[in-house]
């Protein structure tokens, strides 16, 4: 009887079979365990707030009281009854249309200049990157002094070359260009580093071959460097658009000087209006609706850019996507 109770290897016959995972399953489980902290934080701190925000967008929610379902009422008010909504959309689109291309051009030029092997080049790269490290509030306050219409250095420079001084942040016409200037100054450093990395990836052999074939610097840039840099340009373009849509701190700080959002609400950016609805007007439902609209807009723009990339983004390995 004892013998019959034993299996080969001494295992008891009446023992429950052990559930044995395959090696692949065990490896997968280990992998998930290792990334679980990240997944949990993604679910708790990103996915849940996003889903909650989508829900709040359909409610009247003051934070102080439980949300009350109102369906699409927030969207109706936003699109048809709030004149400042379209003002903020226009301000943000204006800002994006100028700050992103100009920022890319400046960053690319800087990267080309700094893509040299020369003594002290590391210092120059650091110097151009440093503005990006400055806290947004501090850099905005600094620029507000520089752009002071009476005493600022920028207008002093304009006067010195015989040009009329500008109102900058005190002018409805020039306040957004002032913000764009600030964004280029602070944002170009990081974009420049990414372009620099992209430039380093371009094989020297291709440039040398072009040189041997008689191509001048501009032709080498136009026909070798630029096409191979398009993946980096594409990445910076997408990130630039996403970041520019979310401009808040500079507009908030600069606008405060003129009572809130600049002359004639010229600095009332989308995120600033969203913030006002959420935390000044106790209308988190409306703010969430605005956030949802921005999310959809950014998804559509990003998808459009990805679709368009097949026409103008080149990858070294296999041509266009």
């Amino acid at each position: 009887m004892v013998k019959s109770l034993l299996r080969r290897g001494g295992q008891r016959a009446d023992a429950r079979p052990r559930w044995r995972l395959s090696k692949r399953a065990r490896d997968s489980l280990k992998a998930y365990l290792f990334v679980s902290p990240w997944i949990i934080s993604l679910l708790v701190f990103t996915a849940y707030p996003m889903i909650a925000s989508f829900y709040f967008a359909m409610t009247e929610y003051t934070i102080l009281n439980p949300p009350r379902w109102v369906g699409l009422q927030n969207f109706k008010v936003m699109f048809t009854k709030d004149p400042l909504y379209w003002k903020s959309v226009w301000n943000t689109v204006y800002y994006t249309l100028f700050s992103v291309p100009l920022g890319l051009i400046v960053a690319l030029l800087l990267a080309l200049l700094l893509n040299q092997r020369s003594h002290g080049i590391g210092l120059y790269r650091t110097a151009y990157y440093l503005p990006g490290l400055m806290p947004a509030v501090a850099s905005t306050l600094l620029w507000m002094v520089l752009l002071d219409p009476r005493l600022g250095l920028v207008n002093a420079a304009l006067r010195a070359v015989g040009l009329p001084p500008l109102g900058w942040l005190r002018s409805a016409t020039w306040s957004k260009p002032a913000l764009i200037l600030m964004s280029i100054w602070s944002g170009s450093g990081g974009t420049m580093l990414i372009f620099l990395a992209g430039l380093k990836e371009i094989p020297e052999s291709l440039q040398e071959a072009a040189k041997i074939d008689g191509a001048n610097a501009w032709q080498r840039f136009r026909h070798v460097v630029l096409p191979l840099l398009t993946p980096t340009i594409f990445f910076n373009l997408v990130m630039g658009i996403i970041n520019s849509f979310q401009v808040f701190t500079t507009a908030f700080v600069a606008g405060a000087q003129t009572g809130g959002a600049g002359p004639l609400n010229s600095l009332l950016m989308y995120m600033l209006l969203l913030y006002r609805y959420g935390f000044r007007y106790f209308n988190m439902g409306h703010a969430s609706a605005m956030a949802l609209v921005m999310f959809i807009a950014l998804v559509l723009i990003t998808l459009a850019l990805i679709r368009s990339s097949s026409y103008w983004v080149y990858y070294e390995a296999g041509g266009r996507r």
Partner: protein
Amino acid sequence: MAACAPATPPAPAEEKPAEEVPAEKEKVTISWWNQFSTPICQEMFPRIVGDFEELYPWVTVDFEISGGPPGGGNYIEVLLSRIAAGNPPDTATLWTPPVQFAARGSLMAIDEMMKDAKWARPESFYEKPLRSCQWRGETYGLPSSAGPGCIFTNTAQFEEKGVSPNRDDFPKTWEDTKELSAKFVVWEDGELTHAGLVPWEASWLYPVWSGLNGGQLFDAENERYVLDSDANVEWLSYWVQWLDDQYGGDIEQFNLYGPWGGVYPESAFQLGLCSMAQSGSWACTDAEIPFAWEVVRFPVGPNGTKSVTGFWPNWWVIPKGASHPKEAFLFIEYLCTKGWETWYTAVMDTPAWKDFSPDILTQKLVDQVGLERAKEIHQFFAAYLEDAVDMWNSPIEDFASDTLNSAIDEVLHKTKTPTEALQEAQDLCQAKLEEVLQSI
């Protein structure tokens, strides 16, 4: 020597016998949130809180003077979150009108506690500052300060122009004030180098300018906005005319000529570029004006009947869900009454409490202008507060304020007429108000 004698300090709390801990009372710790951060706040508030704790030895106050909530973050965001989560601080100081919170059910009504209060009975406060804490007949906080607004004048510049700098000689009407302002306006080579009065410089005083012309912005009793009244249209039309007649008619060009606004350092007033400017009582000591000045009442508009003022309080509230509301009330009562006497010795922030000792003066003001003059200025503000307009009393105060500021900006930029701008502002504010009232 007597004129230079320092102001009598308030009786320190230790001279008053501390309340004996009643047998049934256990020691409690209450939390107090605030946004104070300046060196004077860091010096004075611990002292005031210490006096309170001596008076009520069973209560300890947990607080910090760091400019924001414990742990950092935006004050209002964190406070809203904690109230929503049901674990708010026991008491908070607000720089945002409390009616907005009260109307949404997030503050505790304190009328019952005020009935039996030692100092903070309803009749002990100036009417309008207390009304700024009231919603639909209930009181949801206390105002500690009610710094009245006024016009500051540069007495030396007045004398240079042969104009009497005495308060009683200051013009009583808009027309006379505009005429006076014109005397100080100087244009050199097409640029404005000196201004008189810039009436639109202080947005927090817009309710005052409306009231000076017999108008109103928000009718709290009937819960409706009245922005587009004839009196308000007349008020803004007057300002446009003032801009055209004295300052070139182009508001953006005008703004380039100087840092108009207020009386603080780097303002046109302190730089000597402007002879008159608007501010509140606290600026008498806080702004450190380096020359002789006078404070005068606002002039009355064509449609107005008397000179009125505004006020800008610190509000002290007890959020709903506070763990120790009774002790929290004792704290805010003390801070807004006897405790503020101590604060007032350092900063001339006119108390909202009427039973304030008349012998207590701000030492800095006494040092600056002498005892008799300091007393006179104190009495000026205390008396003017009796003529305050209703302010800060709308459940959509911030929305309305932003909307009105935009409207006035459009009028001064001449992109809209006063009628158009105020009509649009009226429609927006009334719609928002109705939306909020329906949801309450």
